[in-house]
């Protein structure tokens, strides 16, 4: 009897918790729509882009795997006070990013982040990448492969290095889930079938991709 009672209590708790979670997600989705985020970001996978024209037709990055990609601790304050991630305007090689991404109020930022974190691809394995000062990853990122040609990052003296056509990776460890970085390198066709970044599958081993993910995931402000 006691066993049945405790099971019933546990189930009630579980139900209450999952209802609360669903309510938050629904509120976040409603806020996402009310703030017209959908005009630039699509949220239902799988990836829709089949041609360069498809990619260029978009006015903002796809968010259908936002829960794989972002760290929630970064996402909430960013939504409330968005700072440019890309030096250049999305999909442009000539216009600077004017930093005009709309800002959400504090409540909406929290609930939209809750909602976005539920959007996952099912293609990212958690806990595979340990971030660290990865010497091998650094060597690949800065020397062997052209990553730094398109992505900004912080040099050893705190200076900004790197190119401007891709999203900046300065402090990317705050923003990005290192497991997603690895998955993105290993399965580009799942996340971005058409992108300006080269495909490194077959050029870098899985192990070296993990080294790069570990290195980039460790990009954080100096304490």
């Amino acid at each position, binding site marked *: 009897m006691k066993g049945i009672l405790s099971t019933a209590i546990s189930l009630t708790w579980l139900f209450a918790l999952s209802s609360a979670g669903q309510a938050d997600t629904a509120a976040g989705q409603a806020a996402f729509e009310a703030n017209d985020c959908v005009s630039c970001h699509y949220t239902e996978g799988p990836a829709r882009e089949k041609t360069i024209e498809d990619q260029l037709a978009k006015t903002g990055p796809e968010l259908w795997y936002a829960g794989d990609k972002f760290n929630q601790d970064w996402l909430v304050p960013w939504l409330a006070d968005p700072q440019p991630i890309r030096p250049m305007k999305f999909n442009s090689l000539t216009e600077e990013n004017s930093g005009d991404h709309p800002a959400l109020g504090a409540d909406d930022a929290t609930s939209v982040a809750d909602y976005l974190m539920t959007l996952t691809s099912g293609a990212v394995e958690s806990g595979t990448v340990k971030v660290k000062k990865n010497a091998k990853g650094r060597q690949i990122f800065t020397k062997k492969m*052209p990553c730094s040609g398109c992505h900004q990052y912080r040099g050893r003296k705190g200076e900004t290095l790197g*190119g401007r*056509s891709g999203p900046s990776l300065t402090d990317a460890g705050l923003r990005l889930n290192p497991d997603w970085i690895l998955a993105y390198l290993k399965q580009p066709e799942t996340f971005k079938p058409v992108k300006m970044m*080269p495909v490194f599958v077959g050029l870098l081993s899985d192990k070296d991709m993990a080294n790069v993910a570990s290195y980039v995931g460790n990009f954080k402000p100096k304490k």
Partner: protein
Amino acid sequence: MKKVLTLAFAAGLASQTAAPPVHAAETETVFRFYCAQCHGLTGKGDGPNVTKDFPVSPRNFTDATEMSKLTDADLRNVILDGGPAVSKSPMMPPWGKTLSDEEVDGLVGYLREVCACQGG
């Protein structure tokens, strides 16, 4: 007669100006999407990645003197396998896993149009 010749000459010029580009529109799209990041939209080596800190000068494809030193096979190799394949900078990525053979062929032809030169 002279007038007729002048007219014919003018018509010839007009038809030259109106002639469609040799390359397919898709090739220009491919160039502008991938290559222009470093080589610039008009191929002068002045894409947005080329800041004062950029470690190398991306090839200026309008420089016929330099471009004519490279064979079509050289161009194909560097596109497919990246700068190190031709003893150049790894800042030039290997695009072999990204682009199709047709796209690479298209780009080689496009570069020859941009430099208005033949391979050496």
